[in-house]
């Protein structure tokens, strides 16, 4: 008996949802907020999110979610690729804010290949119903200025990955980002209304709400509206 009430498409073993998290791990993420350093908030909240998804995966022989997780700074460090939630090592889910700069293009390129790999794995599932699957969700978190090249081509490639059930939803989340740097996030998001600049103290709460959004089958817009001041 599922406990989820899904108003949209339902993530099931035959229609799993691919969720991709890319988290800024540059030095600026060590800045402290009222809720503690941003990187520690991200670590704790992401672990909780993965545990939440592990708990939702019970009672099924398949997996309702397929996860990609990476942190990025001067380079991108994959933590999980096309993994079932229970296969993600919580010990590896550590954002230490020690990854240098903020090379966004490389991170987005990784997201593209990881998402395609995950979709490829889904398509191997017997009876896989792509049309019935929730849109793949990509969440890109950053608190600083892009120190890499133009994100346009890689962001476009990510958003253009074919998905028969709909489209890839890319949500770009600034973490107290300077307004002058924020337009890059609007360019990364699938639509401008899927970009948001949150108060750094709300980071853990935001990631927790990602879990609630997935559980309820709500659209990412609903999530963004809560934080779009």
């Amino acid at each position, binding site marked *: *008996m599922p406990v989820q009430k899904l108003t949209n498409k339902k993530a099931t073993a035959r229609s799993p949802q691919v969720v991709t998290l890319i988290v800024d791990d540059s030095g600026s993420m060590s800045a402290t907020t009222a809720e503690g350093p941003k990187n520690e908030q991200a670590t704790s909240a992401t672990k909780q999110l993965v*545990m939440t998804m*592990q*708990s*939702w995966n019970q009672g*099924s022989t398949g997996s309702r979610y397929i996860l990609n997780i990476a942190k990025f700074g001067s380079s991108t460090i994959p933590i999980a690729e096309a993994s079932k939630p229970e296969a993600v090592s919580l010990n*590896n889910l550590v954002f230490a804010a020690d990854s240098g700069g903020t090379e966004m293009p490389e991170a987005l390129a990784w997201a593209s290949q990881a998402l395609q790999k995950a979709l490829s794995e889904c398509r191997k599932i017997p009876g896989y119903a792509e049309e019935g699957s929730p849109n793949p969700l990509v969440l890109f978190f950053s608190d600083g200025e892009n120190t890499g090249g133009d994100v346009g081509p890689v962001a476009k490639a990510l958003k253009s990955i074919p998905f028969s059930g709909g489209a890839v939803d890319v949500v770009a989340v600034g973490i107290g980002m300077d307004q002058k740097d924020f337009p890059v996030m609007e360019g990364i998001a699938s639509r401008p209304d899927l970009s948001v600049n949150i108060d750094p103290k709300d980071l853990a709460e935001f990631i*927790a709400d990602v879990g609630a959004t997935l559980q309820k089958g709500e659209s990412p817009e609903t999530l963004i509206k809560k934080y779009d001041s």
Partner: protein
Amino acid sequence: MGNIGGMGGMFKIGPPEDSECLLDLFAFVLYRVRDDQSPFIVQPGTLLVWKDSGLAPGIEDLKAGLQCKAGPPQTRWPALIVEKDTWRELQGGPFLKAVQASIEAAPYFGVYTGKEICRLLAAVAQTKGSAEPEFKDHNLRVYKERIEGALKTYTQAQHQGAVETFQANQRFPPEAQSQQAVSAPPQSQAPPVQPKPTSPPPAPPILIRPRVERPQLWPTERDQFTRGFISTELISLWHASHVGPSYAEKGENQDATFACTDGSRVFFALADGVSTSYGARFSAVAIVNIFCSTLQELLKSATEPTPSLLKEAANKTRIWLDDTLSFLVTNPNASEWAQVRGASNINDDVALHLCENTQTLANRFWGPVMAATLVGGVVQPSANGRGLEVFALRVGDGLIERIENLDTEGGISSLLAMDSQETEISASLSPGRLGENSLVSPETILPSIGAGELLLVSSDGLTRGHNGSVSQKLREITGSSRIGLHNDDQSAALTILQKAADQADDSFKENQQIHLFNDNLSLIVITSKLGKRRGGGVG
């Protein structure tokens, strides 16, 4: 006595391999032994090899070793450590103190495996031994960064009141302490940890979380019935649960049914484990057994069943779940965890987090563990002798229908209904505060079963994928107005469910958009034998 084992100390404790929890525990353990000038003796390499060997210990193995005062432990400790002279030399020294501190404080830091403790001890050995300065310095940085928070965690655990405290000197005999006080280590073997905090907080007491005993009435394999039949002078009751159609790919059967009799009364229960709840299968089996036995016991001192008696039985069942949760949380290495986890594939540490969260509700997005819905009650002959009266309670979903004439089509009434499209449940029987809230106002009904009538109880599985009543759908599938019941077939309920599952699989093969009975299935059917005597009923 020299050091034992190879050096093997070329590792750095820290992320990504080591969790935040383990690093905090490392800081705490190092704090506990930082002033002990005796040689640590055991080398980091020995501990790392132990961790990765076939002898890798569990927490219980480490505890067992510490209790071996007369001689070295016999199992799962490496030969290099338990060699007779070495073991004697280790007594009262910092190594065994570190082991003691680790296993006693580990639950407060969320560390539950012997392997993690071996790695932590290796880092302590590195710090107190003769490792390269690079590694010692790294470890001391970790210590400095974390000791304040680690002590805070430890102190908070003490204040939570769920612990007993013992002073450190109760864990080590006085003579051992006096030996420590006078034994100065050779300079080359045990350089003191530097820098020492300028104003160290007082050494905290060692905490032991009180062990909670396993509740009585623990389910056994024998309790995991998938079918049953009870016949008294006036009552026939069939019950069964089934994993469901193959296409639904349910990993395990999280539905359970049970019934028992006490003279003229028959007690019955059907539970449907919440699929995303850890331990749902175990819980469903436990709930049906405990609810029935508790209600039976309560009725020994009451003249008649009442709604409040049903609620009391449900509440006592919930309290049993609470006790079970406390037992599990305070015994993270107990073998009973394997029974509770069933087919769940989540990691043990996550399971423990989920269990603790059921008690604390710290993470509002996590549902309670061991959650299941319940429909249960008691059926007995009515006082006027014209039929049966039923006292039933529902927590969460599940349904009760009555077939009012077994020999004709139609005549089906819904006594407790549910929305077959709804997959979210509003209440469940579970441990913790959420379970308590669910029992504030459970639904109760008191239907009767007349001659030629049948009462049907089912979980939500039989409602899925069609819009009619369960009774009507089962009539269609079995081709019988009596849904295939015969008193000479004691497995009739399971037979019905098997037919339903087969029908659902056939429908899915024809059209993959049809998801009939897409869940575990369970069924209880109750009839009166009065009808048989008077020419009706199930024959």
